[in-house]
């Protein structure tokens, strides 16, 4: 796995992400500064980590989406390269129009940091092959703007094409407003692009990977990716 972690000013989970990528794949990711115009040669996974790029000024992710490096990411995605955006990364991917929809402020208008339960809707994607479809995983969220929404037509298309990958759910996997902390439509926590190679998700699987510190339900995502890329290589 040769991953590249994008670093925009104000991004702050780049070290968490880099540590997890290294831990799971064994390979140190490249840290790519936002003014670069090219991804390192041979990159097979681009990760946009969480944080507050540009201080969330204007709109979450709006300025980062227009950074020089994003043209290279668009090209990479268009060629089928795998792109993972977490939290602010998801917001940036939406603003960059690599994914549809937007993330609004949480329904209760407050920042929320807690463990949530996600139902993995599909296991036949490079991002979720480490899980079983219908499996419930426990991962943390930490965001103020994670309330996913898109117009009705887009939502219908996302649902119809099976592009909703993660949903907030109860511990036993039920979709329930009480377990949808940010009010996202259809409890959507993560979606993929039409070609399935770009995933955006609000929760932080990278923070749940080490048994001595936390639950380890986030491992599956990175382990699955590493394996998929190994096979492809």
């Amino acid at each position, binding site marked *: 796995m040769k991953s590249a972690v994008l670093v925009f000013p104000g991004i702050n989970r780049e070290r968490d992400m880099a540590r997890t990528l290294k831990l799971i794949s064994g390979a140190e990711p490249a840290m790519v500064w936002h003014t670069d115009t090219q991804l390192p040669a041979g990159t097979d996974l681009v990760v946009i980590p969480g*944080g507050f790029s540009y*201080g969330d000024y204007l709109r979450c992710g709006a300025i980062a989406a227009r950074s020089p490096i994003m043209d290279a990411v668009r090209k990479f995605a268009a060629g089928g390269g795998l792109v993972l955006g977490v939290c602010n990364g998801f917001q940036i991917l939406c603003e960059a129009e690599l994914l549809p929809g937007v993330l609004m402020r949480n329904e209760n208008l407050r*920042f*929320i*940091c807690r463990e949530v339960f996600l139902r993995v809707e599909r296991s036949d994607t490079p991002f979720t092959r480490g899980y079983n479809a219908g499996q419930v995983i426990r991962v*943390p969220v930490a965001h103020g703007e994670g309330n996913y929404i898109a117009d009705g037509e887009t939502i219908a298309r996302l649902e119809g094409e099976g592009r909703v990958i993660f949903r907030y759910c109860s511990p036993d996997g039920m979709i329930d407003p009480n377990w949808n902390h940010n009010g996202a439509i259809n409890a959507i926590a993560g979606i993929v692009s039409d070609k399935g190679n770009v995933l955006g998700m609000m929760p932080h699987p990278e923070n749940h990977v080490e048994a*001595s*510190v936390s639950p380890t339900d986030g491992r599956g995502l990175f382990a699955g990716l590493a394996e998929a890329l190994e096979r492809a290589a």
Partner: protein
Amino acid sequence: MNSVIPNSTPITPALIAEHGLKADEYQRILELIGREPTLTELGIFSAMWNEHCSYKSSKVHLRTLPTTGPHVIQGPGENAGVIDIGDGLACVFKMESHNHPSYIEPYQGAATGVGGILRDVFTMGARPVACLNALSFGDPQHPKTRHLVSGVVAGIGGYGNSFGVPTVGGSVRFHARYDGNCLVNAMAVGIAAKDKIFYSAASGVHMPIVYLGSKTGRDGIHGASMASAEFGEDSEEKRPTVQVGDPFSEKLLLEACLEIMAKGCVIAIQDMGAAGLTSSSTEMGAKGDLGVTLDLDKVPCREEGMSAYEMMLSESQERMLMVLKPEKEKEAESVFRKRGLDFAVVGETTASKRFIVRHRGETMADLPIKELGSEAPVYHRPFVQLPKPPVIDAASVPAPESIAAALETLIGTPDLCSKRWVWEQYDHIILGNTVQRPGGDAAVVRVEDGPKGLALTTDVTPRYCEADSFEGGKQAVAECWRNLTAVGATPLAITDNLNFGNPERPEIMGQFVGCVRGIGEACKVLDFPVVSGNVSLYNETKFPGEDMGRAILPTPSIGGVGLLDDFSKSATLAFKRAGEAILAVGETIGWLGQSIYLREICGREEGAPPPVDLIEERENGDFVRALIRDGTATAAHDLSDGGLAVALAEMAIVSGIGATLSEAPADIPAHAYWFGEDQARYLVTVPAAQAQAVIARAQADGVLAAAIGVTGGEALALPGERPLPLKALSERFESWLPRYMAGGF
């Protein structure tokens, strides 16, 4: 005060008073410089000599605190304290108040409090790894309280979350005595290489002094002076003295500072906090035995036409001052420019020991640099210690109709209820090292990749300090030490954040003196030195129609740091499995004076607080820590507010495992046994088969330990009481704060 006033304006008594300087203090200035100061100079003196910056009322007492120890690398006097945690690493930490600004503008006041303390830590070369806080608010029924809670919590989260440091712990309390002054004490903790700590003393003559970070604006002018006076009816008008925070810039500043430090560019560094450019530049010069000349035309300004006076007193945030190695200047500049941060050479060090400020071709100030700090007034303020309140006989305190019902009530009171609503607004997991999240006795944060861990907590019981400042000061330190011990850590050192009323009132000064003595005593006996701290006085408000200000409860917040050799062996307070023995460690006599029971159930805030026997504290703590370290204790919890019953409820609620308790000893009234707040106590659980051996081991160590119950079931069953189902208990525990904040009650 604005730029149209010329620097040579005559200094009138009114102007002197406006600057918060007393007549005799002004006289001292005249004697020191031998002439009338310029306006800019008057501003500089007012910034350096106010209570907030000069510690003039507190200094003589702070000197009595123990500040050294085998782990101490740097005690008070730098941006933050530094302790050795082994493996070539150091822990850098400090707690500081931002009380006055937070009351006026809660979001920005709290946010910039966090920003300021983070800068103190990374200025020393440490990467911040955790934040904590200690918050005190007024009566929940006071019309302003909800607004303050909401703004302060959002501000703390807003800054820390964006900056990217986990906020892992803290405390929140409510009391009517904070109606006119809330307290926001923020603590930051960082990790640095032990041999790469950066200090503020400049060295070398004609070295470039470099301004870094954000631009200077007109915000926060006289902020430190505001924090050195009590509030009157005009406190709303002080809003413009509150600074505005930008965590985005601070995160960039952090990365840039750490990068140029790693590249060996930095000789000395000082953040611009209270009294901004004035305080930072004079401190760097004075500590290095050097003069400083500043050219204000070079200072990056946010607004046109700022005067020297305004620039010297601005408290705009996210700014740093450094002395750089001349040959590394260009390299350092590129690091800052890459991140879009300002970088300007604004002056140089000189051999003259003068502090000279030039602006538009004129000398605006020319002062002796060392005397600005060293000659600041020092007061031996008169103080009186109020007589100690009588000890309340537990048997004279009315028993509740039912212990169970009283517990249900207590667990849902503002001070004892769950603070989840607060800490869920703080990102407490970022950086991936938070082993114990908020809600336990102390947070535990893994150090880098382990195996070491830091235990962190903030503590104080202000009602104890009010009743008996000496015992209260001792208790604050002891509880902090106990909380670190309860997770299995060795307590290493503390930072103290001393919040009091107007020190010019002898009874307030008496509280201060008593608390400092108590803190000192406890630190000595527990080998728990003070390595950094902050004093916030004048936390008083004159309400309309009253001639005396109403002071806050004396609140010496103690932030403690402990060390775990193996973070994965830390203990948590949750019961682990059914059928384990619950042991109470320490002596229970049923102390109800100043207890939460007495206040919440009987409506009385009376009596002497529980005394702290520091030797017993130490012995009991060492015993519990040993039980945790050798894996015997499966859960541990310190006993504090609400006593045994509340601690048991907390252990049960968080685990979802109930417990059945034995009868209270016959010689203690049941309500005193269950709710008394005797000190130096813990609850631990051990496998049932080991209970007797553990009790024998305690006896051998001269420690009291008694089996008081067994874990299991889905309810907390106190003897002779209806069992309390955990689901309902948890609901009570969790619901008060969200309901209150949503407008309920």
